[in-house]
């Protein structure tokens, strides 16, 4: 047993903490307030983070990246998310798919995709799987041929012609490279008929960005529609086998091992923010001339916030370590489910501590509550819970 970070991990943590405090936090509420869904994005933030290595930190060293381990990834995510959860996710979304490139692409593809990614501070990655209809079927595929994604791919010589739409795609409006899961055989169950294509946005005729979704929380982070209208993709852009997308088992749960852990680590970050800010408030704000911290009900709320957050921290770091050890299991899924529960409970308690009579709604607490609610649809809904439970009950 050892719960200490090593020197390299600590160095990354400190770098992230500094960047978060100096660059992310000062812009967090300001970006959140912007009404236009696309307008919340800020390339300056991405560029600044990219120069510090936060965009490319998961790329293997041989391609010029930093190849940080999972514990470091978790720690950095949490630090960035402590300043702004959605900004943190904008970076870690690139990690997810650079993981996938280094684990599932051929050397030729790696060369082709990683080179521009490494050299361009605004080169952002995404993955298109979800569609408007039947989103959960992709995560928990039923025994039904009609279920699952419909964006279709038909071979045409050395090319494939794609038609259809993806929805809610992370980094959709800003990404330059997308993995796209495409139904290449509609006559079999989804698990046997999906192929992953790599779409270079600027080099793919017929591929375009649709609507940008206007979320109630996580506003900095972009989700958009990806539209294929006879989009033409060369077969050299296929990842792995044709019809093999759902059989790929790089990691444990998502397309890569980082997926589930990422959300849990992110939640840990904003929980830390909530706990620290609430303690500060309780120690400085008064009611009737006395500090809030003197009230036992306030003490109980702080206790619960800290208790849940520290349990989450313990679980996140343990899971990250298990990832680094290549231990497979259900912890990544469970800690993700858990982070939903903890993130919402802690931020709602924070709002409650702020919620003194006669005091205006706290904008920061309200943002954290809105951000945390996104987890209900990513990490903690019943489909995600069932997916993990079914593994345990096999």
């Amino acid at each position, binding site marked *: 047993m050892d719960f200490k970070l090593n020197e390299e991990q600590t160095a990354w943590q400190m770098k992230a903490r500094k960047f978060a405090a100096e660059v992310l936090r000062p812009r967090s509420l300001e970006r959140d307030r912007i*009404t236009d*869904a696309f307008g919340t994005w800020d390339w300056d933030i991405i560029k600044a983070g990219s120069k510090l290595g936060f965009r490319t930190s998961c790329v293997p060293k041989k391609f010029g990246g930093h190849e940080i381990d999972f514990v470091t990834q978790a720690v950095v995510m949490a630090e960035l998310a402590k300043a702004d959860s959605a900004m943190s996710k904008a970076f870690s979304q690139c990690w997810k798919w650079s993981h996938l490139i280094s684990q599932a692409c051929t050397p030729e593809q790696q060369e082709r995709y990683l080179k521009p990614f490494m050299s361009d501070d605004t080169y952002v990655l995404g993955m298109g799987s*979800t569609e408007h209809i*039947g*989103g*959960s*079927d992709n995560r*928990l595929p*039923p*025994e*039904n041929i*009609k*279920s699952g994604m419909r964006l279709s791919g038909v071979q045409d010589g050395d090319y494939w012609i794609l038609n259809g739409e993806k*929805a*809610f795609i992370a980094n959709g409006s800003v990404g330059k490279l997308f993995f796209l899961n495409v139904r290449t055989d509609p006559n079999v169950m989804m698990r046997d008929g999906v192929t992953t294509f790599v779409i270079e946005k600027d080099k793919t005729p017929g591929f375009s960005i649709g609507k940008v*979704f*206007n*979320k*109630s*929380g996580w506003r900095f982070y972009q*989700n958009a529609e990806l539209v294929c209208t006879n989009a033409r993709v060369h077969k050299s852009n296929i990842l792995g086998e044709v019809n093999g997308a759902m059989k790929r088992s790089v990691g444990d749960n998502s397309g890569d091992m980082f997926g589930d852990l990422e959300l849990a680590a992110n939640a840990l970050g904003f929980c830390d923010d909530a706990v620290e800010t609430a303690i500060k408030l309780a120690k400085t704000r008064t*009611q*009737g*001339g*006395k500090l*809030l911290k*003197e*009230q036992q*009900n*306030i003490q109980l709320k702080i206790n619960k916030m800290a208790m849940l957050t520290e349990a989450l921290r313990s679980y996140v770091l343990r899971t990250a370590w298990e990832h680094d050890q290549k231990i497979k299991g259900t912890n990544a899924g469970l800690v993700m489910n858990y982070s939903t529960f903890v993130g919402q409970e802690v931020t709602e308690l924070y*709002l*409650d501590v702020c*919620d*003194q*009579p*006669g005091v*205006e*709604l706290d904008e920061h607490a*309200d943002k954290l*509550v*809105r951000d945390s*609610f*996104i987890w*209900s*649809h990513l990490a903690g*809904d*019943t*489909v995600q819970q*069932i997916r993990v439970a079914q593994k345990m009950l096999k």
Partner: protein
Amino acid sequence: MYNLQLSAEQVEIRDTVRDFVTKELKPVAIKSARMEALDHTPLWAQIDQASQMGLRTLRLAEELGGSGADALTAAIVSEELAVGDPDAAAILAETSAVARVLFGKAMSKAQRDKYLPAFISDDRYHLAHAAAAPANELGINYHRASAAPTATVTAKASGGDFIINGTAAAVANAPLAKLIAVEAQVDGAKGISTFIVPAGTKGMSVKELPLGRYMGSMGEVTFKDCRIPADQLLGKGGEGVMLNGSTLSLQAINLGIGRAAYETAVDYAKIRVQGAKNIIEHQPIGTKLAESAIRLEVARNTIWKAAWLSDHPEALTDDMSSGLPIEAVSQVFVAEHIHRATKDCAECFGAMGVMRDMPLWKYIRDARMCLHSGAGVSDAKLVIAEAISGFRREGA
């Protein structure tokens, strides 16, 4: 005799309002563009229509030109309106509640003759009540005497008139009210006095407060050497007229918000297919909807009981409420359970549950606002705890 059946009149008004909400109010209120832009501009066409249906003057006595509805009926109406648009529901409920006491009890005949006709005939004539700031420090004062409410507005007699100064921080309906009743501490007098000040009076200004924090419309009212004639004082002064102060309409609005979320979720769960079955046929979704249905049903019973008791204070015997402050009981229950229900209902929608052009996120936000409105549920629980222990605040 115990009887849970509404009167034919109550059923009729409920059905009429429900029909109006379904056809007129809701389709406009949940337009995507409006929600996406966080647009809270009052839906005047619909609010006017509601006024013509008598909802603005719902609680005003019949002999004064209103509908003379009781608190229970008003709660039913507020729930229905809020299913469509909580803002409209809040604006109408506030005017109706203030009108009942202002015209019905607080005004002299002369005052009534002066203000009532315009109020009755003008669909846009809304009312506001700027109360003295309550002593909002129950937490720290739990089981201790607390300070009396402090008037942030003062008045001074001056040559037959009064000069009013000061600021009332958060006054519902103030930005759109044509008449504002303001509580002020009159120099040298005991107790709080209430003055009526028509909108536009020189020296009174209203600053609209930011959207999204309150239901309806909220403003800060500032008086700067505002001179008003003595005949705009209600009663003899120093009496502290109770013009509203009930949270029941907000509770009913909260219930309406929850119901809107629930109804939307049920409709969706019956048609959305997942795993080759409608999602309501999956145990977890069915269970979530059942839990939400329970919350709504029980919340409604609680609000109705509180409303009925406010209509029948003579029934406040121990068998009815166990001596509990029933409105606080209802406040806590409704706020906590509707908030949970809106979140559960939104979960049925997947990603659409967080999109600003869809109504679910707004239901959650509105329910959160109710949960954190006023002094919040933590304080309401302490109010109940003091009642349980038999603690009586001095001066209360």
